[in-house]
């Protein structure tokens, strides 16, 4: 019995890797641009469908499909920020919420119009069923493990980019004080757009992994947004490692809830979030 619970916790940690990846971009945009992109989950699902079209529709090898989508996502993130979001930043609370909210609804319905409402999944071949035997009662799927390792690497990489590179320093500078940056010739719209491009890359990577691991349909976005949001808030705003911890916490809460009763899986994640948030609103690892 204890073995079954231990197994669920391991599976939950691995699931948390995917959730943390969903949350990475949201954490970055919330930390740097200080807004919550309500269309975040829908953009992830949009990537899932792009992977579907390339890999299943056109027969492009999966890795090549990702290699095509990642740079596209950077450009798309840059353009989205520069042409749309930048125009409503700094005008109070409402405009950016309403614009990203409208975007969310447009993406969902455009996907539904294009692909129909069916549930989809992208086949990834033999990796899907391959498992590694750890100890008795605990088997780890190669795909979930790969995703978890990728999530940790992504946090490491983002952390290095933000804290060890020139562009990272410029992003943090603009995040500190955009108008001071403008005064000394560091144009905040351009830097914000680069940050959103990086967010786009995290969206592309997490969307690609989601496409091969879980089912998705055009309305899957909001639930991804909620999970990403919960991981960001649980981890502490602006802390990437905290976001990873938040994602893992949610993954474990969900699988344990699912162990109790399959129908409780999603609800258990939300309840865990609400309880922890009530007890510790500043999150687990607040940066400030």
């Amino acid at each position, binding site marked *: 019995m204890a073995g079954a619970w231990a197994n669920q916790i391991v599976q939950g940690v691995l699931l948390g890797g995917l959730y943390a990846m969903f949350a990475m971009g949201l954490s970055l945009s919330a930390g740097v641009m200080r807004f919550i992109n309500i269309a975040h989950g829908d953009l992830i699902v949009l990537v899932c469908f792009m992977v579907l079209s390339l890999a299943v529709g056109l027969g492009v090898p999966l890795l090549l499909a990702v290699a095509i989508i990642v740079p596209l996502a950077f450009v798309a993130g840059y353009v989205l920020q520069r042409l749309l979001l930048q125009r409503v930043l700094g005008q109070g609370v409402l405009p950016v919420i309403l614009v990203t909210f409208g975007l969310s609804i447009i993406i969902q319905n455009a996907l539904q119009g294009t692909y129909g409402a069916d549930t989809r999944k992208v086949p990834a071949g033999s990796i899907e069923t391959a498992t590694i035997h750890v100890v008795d009662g605990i088997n780890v799927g190669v795909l979930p493990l790969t995703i978890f390792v990728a999530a940790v690497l992504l946090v490491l990489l983002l952390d290095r980019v933000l804290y060890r590179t*020139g562009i990272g*320093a*410029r992003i*943090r*500078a603009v*995040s*500190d*004080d955009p108008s*001071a*940056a*403008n*005064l*000394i*010739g*560091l*144009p905040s719209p351009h830097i914000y757009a680069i940050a959103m491009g990086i967010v786009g890359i995290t969206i592309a990577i997490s969307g690609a992994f989601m496409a091969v691991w879980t089912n998705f349909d055009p309305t899957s976005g909001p639930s991804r947004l909620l999970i990403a949001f919960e991981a960001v808030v649980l981890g502490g705003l602006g802390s990437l490692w905290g976001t990873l911890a938040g994602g893992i916490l949610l993954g474990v809460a969900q699988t344990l809830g699912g162990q109790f009763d399959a129908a409780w899986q999603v609800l258990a994640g939300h309840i865990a979030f609400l309880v922890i948030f009530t007890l510790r609103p500043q999150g687990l690892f607040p940066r400030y």
Partner: protein
Amino acid sequence: MTALLEVDALSVFYGKFRALFDVSLTIAEGEIVSIIGANGAGKSSLLKAIVGQVPRVEGEIRLSGRSMADQTTAARVAAGVALVPEGRRLFPSLTVEENLDIGWQTGRRGEIRRDDVYGYFPVLRERRNQRASQLSGGQQQMVALGRALLANPRLLLCDEISLGLAPVVIDGLYRMLPQIRDRGTAILIVEQDISRSLAVADRFYCLLEGKVNLSGRPGEFSREEVERSYFGG
């Protein structure tokens, strides 16, 4: 003497509010020029207009005879105009070194390197890995000045660099200005403290309610004359 910066009939508007009225001035290479004037006279608006951070201007601003009207702030900084903003405006979560490097990254490529700034302000070398927010006000002003210097400006704009600092610290900063000038950088300083800025300036302009009402060399006028135009008496 060739003019490095020419400001010609410059007016600055914030919506319907007009902050400057047809202001004209020049700065030659290797010159320290002081802008004096009371609070709200339009001094900061002038500096912001020179770096291109005001909503609307009329008139001309030329650097070495080339109009900067259509250039972004980034292009002006890269062409050799650097601002030390009022209130220092460092990036508090960045280290001293990261703050300085942003000056280098945005600026004109030139001979002033980080080590030169540490030579001017040795204390910054000791504190280079500390966050800017942990420094004293005087040290922060050194970083702000260093950040602008690392942009290798041909024209350095200093907005109220003495604000809120102890006299001994201000003395130190003001002693730097002739050294910087002697490396070939022209300096435009904006100050409310008349005696301090006139002591170091080659020429000055006095602004009153958005207009130049007195200009010349500091020795040409008595203190009373300067004060009269400063307060508009």
